């Protein structure tokens, strides 16, 4: 017992402490000042996540996070004597010059792709950092603990990179949004995971850069095969999962570099991302394992698409307008179709007209309507719908008792399986076929003339 612990700790802590000395010893700031600076940045990140958890403080929270990142970067530059300073600054400028316009100009409906893309490149960067650090320390033995963290970073960072790129391609409709199940995919997946395991063991045992690099390449394959069989409806959950993966990767990178800030920031994201993923999966009534491995077990992860034979009541825009006009309380249930048709402004205008006539209008937001959880909130907020009117599923369900009309806009897919919580879907339901934008514009015109 004692002997074991001693052996472990010899390998475990000797080299990391040395590495810390290496990276924080020779700059303008003392090592302790650097650590205190990193701690302050970590606190900023915690406050950022806390702020982001409440609508009133969300924006300030994000700014606090950005301030923390800036502080950390300044501290890093002052912490040690950096070679190639000009090139490093240039690379930062290039990265910012690409990302800022992209982030500024992206359309609201394309936000999810953007998040997936940024997540992927972050994971890729973490994997590259771990490989480089391994290359640098090739002489000394970094110890099994640090090597395990290196292998983890290289593997999971690559998985996150490749998975996010496939997700991006699916969302951007560069490739099909349908689940892709290649013949024998199951065996390819099992094989590449096995290979990754062997390579990870080899990396830890030998500290060999080649083994770690091949491990990273295997990670790319794992990432691709992990996300390919996921159907469009499950994509939001996968983005959240990959986000948590990148967080854990960065945390492992913190162990590799003995850097508290990477450790805390990555762990925060990994832990909160895991919770978020579970919340989302629970809201859709799915298990994360089912989403990832369901397709491989046979069939895609998309729901059954058997067409029901029940007669539906098709109505025109005028009928809908009349229904709305003589209601006292209307709940709008927006869905993916609202985003596709960019009809958020029209629905807001319609709601305002109705409110002008004393009709109460609420929005019932299914947690996974749209392409990401909360996508509908962002979209409606863009159209200046105040967030007080946006109700979550739990809040809005009791409202239905006193509601006269429920207007389901491009959300048949979320309302249908949710039939148990949304009463009266069958006989009292009328369908207005057509594009959400066209139809709503017609309804709006009809309401105005009443």
């Amino acid at each position, binding site marked *: 017992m004692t002997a074991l612990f001693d052996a472990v700790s010899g390998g475990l802590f000797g080299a990391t402490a040395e590495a810390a000395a290496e990276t924080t010893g020779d700059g303008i700031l003392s090592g302790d000042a650097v650590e205190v600076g990193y701690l302050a940045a970590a606190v900023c990140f915690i406050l950022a996540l806390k702020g982001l958890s409440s609508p009133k403080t969300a924006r300030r929270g*994000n700014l606090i996070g950005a301030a923390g990142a800036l502080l*950390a970067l300044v501290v890093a530059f002052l912490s040690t004597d950096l070679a190639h300073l000009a090139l490093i600054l240039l690379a930062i400028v290039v990265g910012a010059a690409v990302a800022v316009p992209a982030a500024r100009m992206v359309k609201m409906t394309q936000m999810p792709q953007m998040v997936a893309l940024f997540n992927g490149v972050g994971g890729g960067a973490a994997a590259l950092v771990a490989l480089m650090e391994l290359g640098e320390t090739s002489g000394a033995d970094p110890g099994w603990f640090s090597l395990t963290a290196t292998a983890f970073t290289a593997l999971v960072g690559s998985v996150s990179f490749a998975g996010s790129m496939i997700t991006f391609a699916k969302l951007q409709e560069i490739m099909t949004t349908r689940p892709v199940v290649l013949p024998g995919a199951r065996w390819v997946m099992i094989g590449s995971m096995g290979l990754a395991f062997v390579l990870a063991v080899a990396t830890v045992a030998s500290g060999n850069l080649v083994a770690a690099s091949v491990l990273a390449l295997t990670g790319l394959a794992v990432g691709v095969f992990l996300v390919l069989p996921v159907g469009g409806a499950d994509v939001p959950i996968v983005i959240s999962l990959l986000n948590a993966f990148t967080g854990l990767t960065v945390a492992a990178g*913190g162990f590799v570099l003995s850097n508290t800030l990477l450790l805390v920031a990555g*762990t925060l994201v990994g832990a909160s991302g895991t919770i978020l993923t579970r919340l989302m999966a629970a809201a859709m009534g799915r298990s994360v394992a089912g989403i990832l491995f369901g397709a491989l077990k046979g069939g895609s992860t998309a729901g059954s698409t058997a067409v029901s034979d029940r007669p539906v009541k098709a109505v025109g825009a005028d009928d809908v307008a009349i229904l709305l006009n003589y209601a006292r309380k209307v709940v709008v249930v927006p869905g993916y179709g609202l985003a596709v048709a960019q009809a958020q402004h029209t629905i807001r205008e319609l709601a305002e007209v109705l409110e002008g006539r004393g009709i109460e209008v609420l929005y019932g937001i299914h947690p996974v309507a749209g392409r990401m959880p909360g996508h509908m909130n962002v979209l409606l907020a863009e159209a200046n719908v105040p967030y*007080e009117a946006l109700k979550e599923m739990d809040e809005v369900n009791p409202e239905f008792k006193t509601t006269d009309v429920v207007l389901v806009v491009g959300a048949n897919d979320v309302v249908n399986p949710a039939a148990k919580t949304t009463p009266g879907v069958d006989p009292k339901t009328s369908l207005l076929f057509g594009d959400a934008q066209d139809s709503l514009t017609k309804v709006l015109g009809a309401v105005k003339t009443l």
Partner: protein
Amino acid sequence: MTGVALLSVFVLAVFVGFEVVSKVSTTLHTPLMSGANAIHGIVLVGAVLVTGHADGIGAQLVGLLAIVLATANLVGGFVVTDRMLEMFKARPGAGASAAKEGEGR
């Protein structure tokens, strides 16, 4: 920091991460995910430090690539989150009924 210290910090950060987001409303899931996504872009600090100590030209190029990618994650992440949140504003005085309901809970 020593290994045990890092381990202690890791364990505590796990609890902070779990607890902080466990109360978030679905309204904020997308911005929260996006903000968390920006935060892990802080791997940029690691990329800068490693590149600043890189020896070979190959390692330098890889390091610069990592810096570009990490910067995109960090900067782009915060900007896109801010854009989302820009739109979350309370109704300016109007909508008394909605506001009342919001407080009623």
